[in-house]
């Protein structure tokens, strides 16, 4: 036994040296060069890349851009709060931006371009006490598979009420509002259109027709595109995206009115590149910066009134937008209450 352990002892130094080598190997490289702007991006990757390149060309400031879903971005910003590594959070639904503002994770900043913006973009600014502002808007709507509808000779859904029709039994997908901001917007929209009691009655009936509560907000759009389901409740630009990709889908806006998201931008409190962050913020509000969206086939409504509206974008003027109360439905308490009720009354009876 003694002899067996002997070689190991001699190996001890070798392994120890290996460990020491490993320490050097993993000792952090110097942090990134000064002056690189770090941006968390909440829209599709092409757009992220396009605006980063456009900004670099214009300002000469290098941008490091990383795509994160809204929830992931918020979780990361929260976790980093003591020593932020991110400078700007650009894109993604306005709700989590409001939450970040409420928790004091972002910085108040007044832009000279404020007056050029659409009223909904300004309202995001006011509600966040200046810590966030709208850069685009996307309306909630339906997407449907035209091929399957044609085959079964079913009328495309045009209203919330249409979704309760028996021919849509087991054919509707919407995300789980506990997981997805898109679905929470839908829930809050229905509560604002019908009143809370009637909205939950509606959701209970809708539950009969829903085959799956997906986890990601844009998943129903992909499922409709692949003919896995007939109808999805989504942000309309996600549906248009699938259409551009060559799938047999189309979108419609509900006739009773619909809610919307305000894609927003915020500067992170404690940013170490504040001037660059402000420059990016301004660029993303300018018509030039907002044009990068349409260039990469992203069809949200830009927030700057001078920005060109892409012809494919769902025209917000033709859609009956409700006067969405972000103030009320954005607060943590209201959110928690509605979600708990949804969990208790809808989710627990879902198959």
């Amino acid at each position, binding site marked *: 036994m003694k002899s067996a352990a002997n070689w190991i002892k001699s190996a001890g130094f070798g*392994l120890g040296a290996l460990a020491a080598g490993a320490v050097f190997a993993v000792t*952090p490289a110097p942090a990134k060069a000064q002056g690189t702007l770090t941006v968390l991006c909440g829209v599709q990757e092409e757009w992220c890349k396009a605006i980063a390149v456009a900004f670099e060309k214009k300002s000469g400031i290098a941008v490091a851009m990383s795509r*994160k879903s809204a929830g992931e971005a918020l979780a990361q910003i929260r976790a980093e709060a003591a020593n932020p590594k991110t400078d700007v959070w650009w894109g993604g639904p306005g709700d989590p931006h409001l939450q970040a503002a409420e928790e004091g994770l972002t910085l108040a900043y007044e832009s000279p371009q404020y007056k050029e913006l659409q009223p909904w973009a300004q309202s995001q600014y006011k509600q966040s006490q200046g810590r966030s502002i709208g850069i685009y808007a996307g309306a909630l709507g339906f997407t449907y598979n035209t091929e399957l509808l044609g085959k079964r000779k079913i009328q495309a859904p045009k209203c919330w009420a249409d979704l309760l029709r028996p021919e849509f039994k087991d054919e509707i997908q919407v995300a789980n509002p506990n997981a997805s*901001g898109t679905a929470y917007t839908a829930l809050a929209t229905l509560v604002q259109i019908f009143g809370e009691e009637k909205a939950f009655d509606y959701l209970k009936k809708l539950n009969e027709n829903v085959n799956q509560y997906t986890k990601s907000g844009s998943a129903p759009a992909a499922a409709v595109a692949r003919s896995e389901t007939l109808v999805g409740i989504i942000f309309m630009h996600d549906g248009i995206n699938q259409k551009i*990709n060559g799938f047999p889908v189309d979108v419609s806006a509900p006739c009773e009115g619909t809610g919307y998201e305000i894609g927003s931008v915020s500067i992170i409190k404690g940013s170490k590149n504040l001037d660059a962050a402000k420059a990016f913020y301004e660029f993303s509000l300018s018509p030039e910066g907002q044009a990068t969206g349409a260039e990469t086939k992203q069809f949200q409504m830009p927030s700057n009134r001078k920005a060109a509206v892409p012809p494919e974008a769902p025209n917000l003027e033709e859609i009956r937008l409700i006067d969405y109360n972000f103030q009320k439905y954005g607060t943590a308490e209201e959110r*928690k209450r509605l979600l708990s009720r949804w969990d208790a009354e809808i989710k627990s009876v879902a198959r």
Partner: protein
Amino acid sequence: MRPRSAIWLALGWVGFALLPWFAGSGTQPALAPPSPGPAGSALIDGLTNGRWWLLPIALPLLLALAVTALPGLRARRPAVLLASGAFGLAWITVQGFAIGLDGWASGWLGALFGPLALGQGGFGAGAALTALSFLFLMTNGFAGLGFMKGDRFTAGAIGLVLAAIAAFVFLPVGYVLSGAGDTGSGGFSAAALGARLAAPDIWRLSCLTEAKSCGVVWNSVFLAVMTGIATTLLGLAFALVAVRTGFRAKKLLRVLTVLPIITPPFVISLAVILLFGRNGTVTLAMSDWFGLPASRWIYGLPGVLLTQTLAFTPISFLVMIGVVQGIGPSLEEAAQTLRASRWITFRTVTWPLMRPGVANAFLISFIESLADFGNPLILGGNFEVLSTKIYFAVVGAQNDPGRAAALGIILLCLCLGAFWVQRQWLGKKSYATVGGKGDNGIPSQLPRGIKIAAYATALPWAAFTFVLYGLILFGGFTENWGRNNSLTLRHYLAAFDLSWGPGGLIWSGRAWGSLFTTIEVAALSAPLTAAVGLLTAYLLVRQSFKGRGAFEFLTMLSFAIPGTVIGISYILAFNQPPIELTGTITILIICFVFRNMPVSIRAGVAAMSQIDRSLDECSLTLGAGSVQTIRRVILPLLRPAIVASLVYSFVRAITSISAVIFLVSPKYELATAYIVGRVEQGDFGLAIAYSSALIVLMSVVIALIQFAVGERRIGRRAATPVTLQEKPV
């Protein structure tokens, strides 16, 4: 003084007096006076910059130097080394946590000691080296006092593994789990913790009595047990076919079983949807030919079970094949000489000897299934499991990290339970069959029934895997998979285009950046993982020390926690001093090493428990040096384990997504994170093309690893039929 302690002590002085104590930009926070540059060591910084708290580190170093240099103090040496190592380590840790970027890290420290004018950055090379030196001085002291049978290597190795686990598993996980009792306003309450742990949507059993969904724990456990059983049986069947039958296309079989493990996430799920989804190829064929109505059965338990079985069977196979290969035929021959039938031999000799493999394979699959995130995400439908629930508790609309922590605790307890059951089943028996005695037999043929069962399980599964992969590879060349199947090279060009510019070759494809980072991270983390894992396995199998069971459990901890939780916990723990790693490539490498280490440990434990200790002793008795013994006896016998851990950790570093989604930074983007982005966007073509390229790349690397490490040859078990006729010696 033994030279090893002296060398460690010297390295400690180098780290303290010569190397930069802080890392990167952390050296000069805004409040600091000008320092002699980023290369400032603790000694210089402490003397000239007013960071007085660094100076006491010299005390234990001086003390250790005194006992090392003065012969008169020899008798006290171990105790003094132990004390100074422990004090040095403790001081470095305490000052690191107490003083942050802008002075005291918590308010009460400031109230106690008065305000502090400066702060400090994260640990750098100097701090790391000095801490390591203290660690080994301490363990040498322990060994000198007679602990661990006085064996310095064992003491040092245990110290190293424990310290690493403490820093890179406990610390981050502790940050997350301490949130379980969080009241929302920063306080802690047992009532909040109790309420979260007992929530009805976790535990309810309503699916048994009425048409409602069951609690998420029951879903997870049921899925994990089913996956564990399915993958273990399949892995066993493949291992038996590959080792114990005359099956001709063994190589092909191995390749096929390893394919799913080298597949980036989402791709299998995507392929399964395109085959079995309501509009899938198979589904449509079934409804055309047999009139079966198209349904969405794939969304939910069946789909997740199918994809998890596809994904984890290879891991189970990798563990099983090492064990099946290692079973010495002498025992089986003895049984047959005593006129036992093939079946009785299998049941009473072969099967019991395979039990460590079966148990380890089941444990790994069970835990992998509990922690799996990608497959339930895509195919779960309304079937909820713990891992997705935890993810959405963190990033979902409710944003309740406390709930995520409570669910994380439950998940940990499940893994602990599985681990305990495994230990009970294996018991304290010995499974050593590779001994120094004459071991020249040929493995007995399998009983007929088992053989048929193994073939019947393995071959259809292999065929299924083959079809799936054919489809995936084909999908990369189609215009729009599933809709427009005309062939194109468009996606490959978009990802991997090269062009010539004025400055030479331009990597103009969109995938190159993330591909290079991915390869770098995987290549750096794989050998580290294998080294740490096999070292730990050696400690677990070959050494007996107090608390070995607890130690074994601790090493499994990082595996049991879902990747998402690990990711969040790494940001919480490593974003600020003392250990500041976010945004670097280091954090990715460390994350992979500690996440993949358990598989390496399991493979090492399974292989090593078969090797009799007498072999090491024998080699030494015959006059071989220790290095020669390791090189020519131990390592060759561990080859399957080495291959398994290298392959697994390399591949996992390329294909895993959930742990790193929070850790990738714009500068260090990984391939999977990029691919998932493409899938979300609905751009399946590029995602599949990129995935196919990764699959080809990993196949090449696996072949290289296999070639470099080589096969283990025991007795004549890999013998050719010609030598079969020779007389056994």
